[in-house]
C-alpha cells in the first residue's frame, strides 16, 4: 500500500510538465506583473473628491489634494492636503508607507501650527470617517501579501485572473482579499475584503480607467461598499498629473508647514 502511493507520487512528479507552477507561484507572478507595469511613474498629483454615504443615502463630501512620490523597494511617500470639510482645511498628512512595518505619519494642524507625529500601527483604521481604511489607500507592493491564483473569471465582460492576497502585515484588518486582475492590462477591476473573522466586509470596484504616459492606468472612480454596515464611499479622482518634478525633499516633515 505504502509503496504503491510512493510510486503514484513519483509518477505524478515525473509526468508533470517542467513549467507547471503552483497556484501560489502563479498568483505571485501576476502580482509581480501588476507591480512591474505600474513602476517608473516617479511622482504624481491628483485631486480627490470623497462622497460618503450612509445607509439612509445621506451624503457628505470631502475634497483632498494628493501628491505621491514613488519609492523603489518600499511603499510610496504621499502628501494629502485637506480642502473640505472647511474646519480641517489646510490640514496636511504626510505618510511614508511600508509593506511590513507601521507607516511613518505626520499630521500638520494649521490652526495650532503644530506638526504631530502619529502612531500608525492601525493601518486598518478608517480614513476620514470613510469606508476606506488607511491600508486600502496605500500603494501596492508585492511584499505586502502572499498570493494564490484561484481561477479565471469575467467581470462585466473583462477577462480577469482571480487572485487571493493574504496580508503579511500583522495588524492588517483583513484575513484575505480576493482581487480580480484584468488579464490584458494587469490592473485591479474589483477587490473583495474579508474581515478578521473571514466574513465578506467590503467590495471595491475600480471604474473609468484612463491611461497616462502611454503606460499607467488610473481609475477615475473607486466605489467601496461595506456589506456589514450598508455604508459606501465613492472616490472621484481628477486631474492626474505625472512626473511633475516633485522631489524627496518635498516629502519632508519640515515642508508640511509651508504647504498649501
Amino acid at each position, binding site marked *: 500500500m505504502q509503496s504503491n502511493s510512493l510510486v503514484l507520487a513519483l509518477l505524478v512528479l515525473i509526468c508533470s510538465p517542467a513549467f507547471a507552477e503552483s497556484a501560489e507561484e502563479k498568483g505571485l507572478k501576476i502580482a509581480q506583473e501588476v507591480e512591474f507595469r505600474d513602476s517608473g511613474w516617479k511622482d504624481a498629483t491628483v485631486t480627490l473628491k470623497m462622497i460618503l454615504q450612509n445607509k439612509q443615502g445621506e451624503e457628505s463630501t470631502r475634497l483632498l489634494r494628493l501628491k505621491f512620490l514613488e519609492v523603489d523597494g518600499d511603499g510610496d511617500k504621499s502628501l494629502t492636503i485637506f480642502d473640505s470639510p472647511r474646519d480641517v482645511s489646510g490640514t496636511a498628512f504626510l505618510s511614508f508607507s511600508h509593506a511590513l512595518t507601521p507607516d511613518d505619519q505626520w499630521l500638520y494642524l494649521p490652526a495650532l501650527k503644530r506638526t*504631530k507625529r502619529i502612531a500608525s500601527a492601525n493601518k486598518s483604521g478608517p480614513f476620514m470617517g470613510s469606508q476606506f481604511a488607511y491600508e486600502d489607500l496605500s500603494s501596492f507592493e508585492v511584499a505586502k501579501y502572499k498570493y494564490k491564483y484561484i481561477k479565471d473569471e469575467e467581470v462585466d465582460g473583462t477577462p480577469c485572473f482571480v487572485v487571493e492576497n493574504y496580508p503579511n502585515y500583522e495588524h492588517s484588518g483583513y484575513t484575505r482579499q480576493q482581487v480580480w486582475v484584468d488579464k490584458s492590462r494587469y490592473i485591479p477591476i474589483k477587490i473583495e475584503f474579508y474581515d478578521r473573522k473571514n466574513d465578506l466586509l467590503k467590495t471595491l470596484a475600480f471604474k473609468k480607467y484612463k491611461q497616462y504616459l502611454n503606460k499607467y492606468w488610473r481609475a477615475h472612480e473607486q466605489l467601496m461598499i461595506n456589506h456589514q454596515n450598508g455604508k459606501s464611499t465613492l472616490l472621484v479622482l481628477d486631474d492626474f498629473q505625472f512626473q511633475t518634478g516633485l522631489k524627496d525633499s518635498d516629502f519632508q516633515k519640515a515642508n508640511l508647514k509651508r504647504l498649501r
Partner: protein
Amino acid sequence: MKQHVVSVLALLSTGLLFQATPADAEGWDFAGYVAAETRLFINDPAYSNQRDDRVSPSLVIEPELVYESNNRQYRFTLVPFARWDAHDEERQHADLREANLLYIKDNLDVLAGIGKVFWGVTESRHLVDIINQTDSVEDIDGEDKLGQPMLRLNVINDWGTVSAFVLPGFRERTFPAHDARLRGALVIDTDNPVYESSDGQSHIDYAVRYAHTLGQWDLGLSYFDGTSREPRLIPTIKNSQILLVPHYDQINQLGLDAQYTGEATLWKLELISRHGQGRRFVAGVGGLEYTLYGVLNSKADLGLIFEYQYDDRNPSEAPATAADDDFFLGTRLTLNDISDTTFLAGVIIDRHTHSTFYSVEAAYRISNNWKIELEGRFTGGVDENDILYGIRDDDFITLRLAYFI
C-alpha cells in the same frame, strides 16, 4: 479697542468678496471662521467685585486671506482675529494673528511680518513653546497665542531643519478685566507692566531651533534670548489697593523636545533650562500616549495619556506655576465617524496639595461648514497656596457653534 474691531470688520467685508477657492489655485484664497459661543459659569464668583453673570456670551471672527504668487515663491497671509464679549472688556479684543510675507526658494524660506510658531510635543503643558505670547483671555489652557512680529529664516537640510528668529516687538500677556471671571484673587495692573530691559516692549529677542527626524525619533533643540513671555506678578499697593503688576524679565532658555513613536505608544518629553529669573532652573514634562485602536470592536480609537510635570523654579524669584510636581491623566476618544466626533478629558493633580484641575473637550461636525464644540474647565479641592485658588469658583463650560468659511 473698538477701532480695532471696526478695522477687522472692514477687512472681513473686503475678504468676503473673494469666494472660497481650492487652495492649489494661484491667486487669492479665503478661509477662516465665525463663531457664537457662551460660557456657563457653575458657581457665583469668589470675590464681591467680580461680575456674577452665569451666562456670558461672545462672538468670534477669524478670517484668513492668502495670496500666492504665480511661481508660488511668494505668499502673503493675513489672519485678523476679533472677539466681542458681553462681560469681560479685556476679552473683547482684536489681534493680528498673522500678517506676513513668506518667500520660498528650494530648501530655504524667509518669513517677515506677524506670525505664529509652535514648538513641542507634550499635551498637558507647553514648556518649550516660547515664540508667541499666550492670549490667556481666550482660554486658561494656554493654547491660544497672540501674533508675534518676526523675521524668520528656515533652512531645510538632510541633516535637519535650522530656524533662526529675530523678534522685534514684545507682546504683553492678556489678562481678564478687573471685574471679570477668571481674573484671580487680585486685580492685575495690565496697563502698567514693568520691563527689566530699558528697551521695554521694543527689546529685540532672538531664537534658534534645530529639528530633525531620526527613524522613530522626532527631536528639537531650541534656544531663546529675550523678554520672558511669562510675567512675574508682583503685589504692589496703588491708590490703597493691592494690584498685581506684571514684571517681564530678560531670560535665556534652552529647550529640548523629543518624541519616540512606537506602534501604539508615543513617548514624549520636553525639558527647559532657564536663566534670568533668580537662580537657573529646570522644568520638564514627559510621559506617554497609548492608543487602543478599534476599541470594543468599533471603529473608535481610545487614547490614554499620562504625563508628569516637574518644575524646580523658586516661586519668589520666578513666575509662579501650578505645574511644579503634578500628574496629568487624560483620555482621548476618537469615533472616526463621518462627523469626526472627538472627546478629550484630563485631570492634573498636584502631588503635594492634591489640588486638581479638570478639563473636558468635545467636538462634532454638523455639516461641511458647521461645527459644534464644548469645553469645560473645573477645579477641585484647590489648596489656598495653589495659584488656581483665585479661580476656584470660576468653573465653566464653553459651548461654541462655528461656521467655517
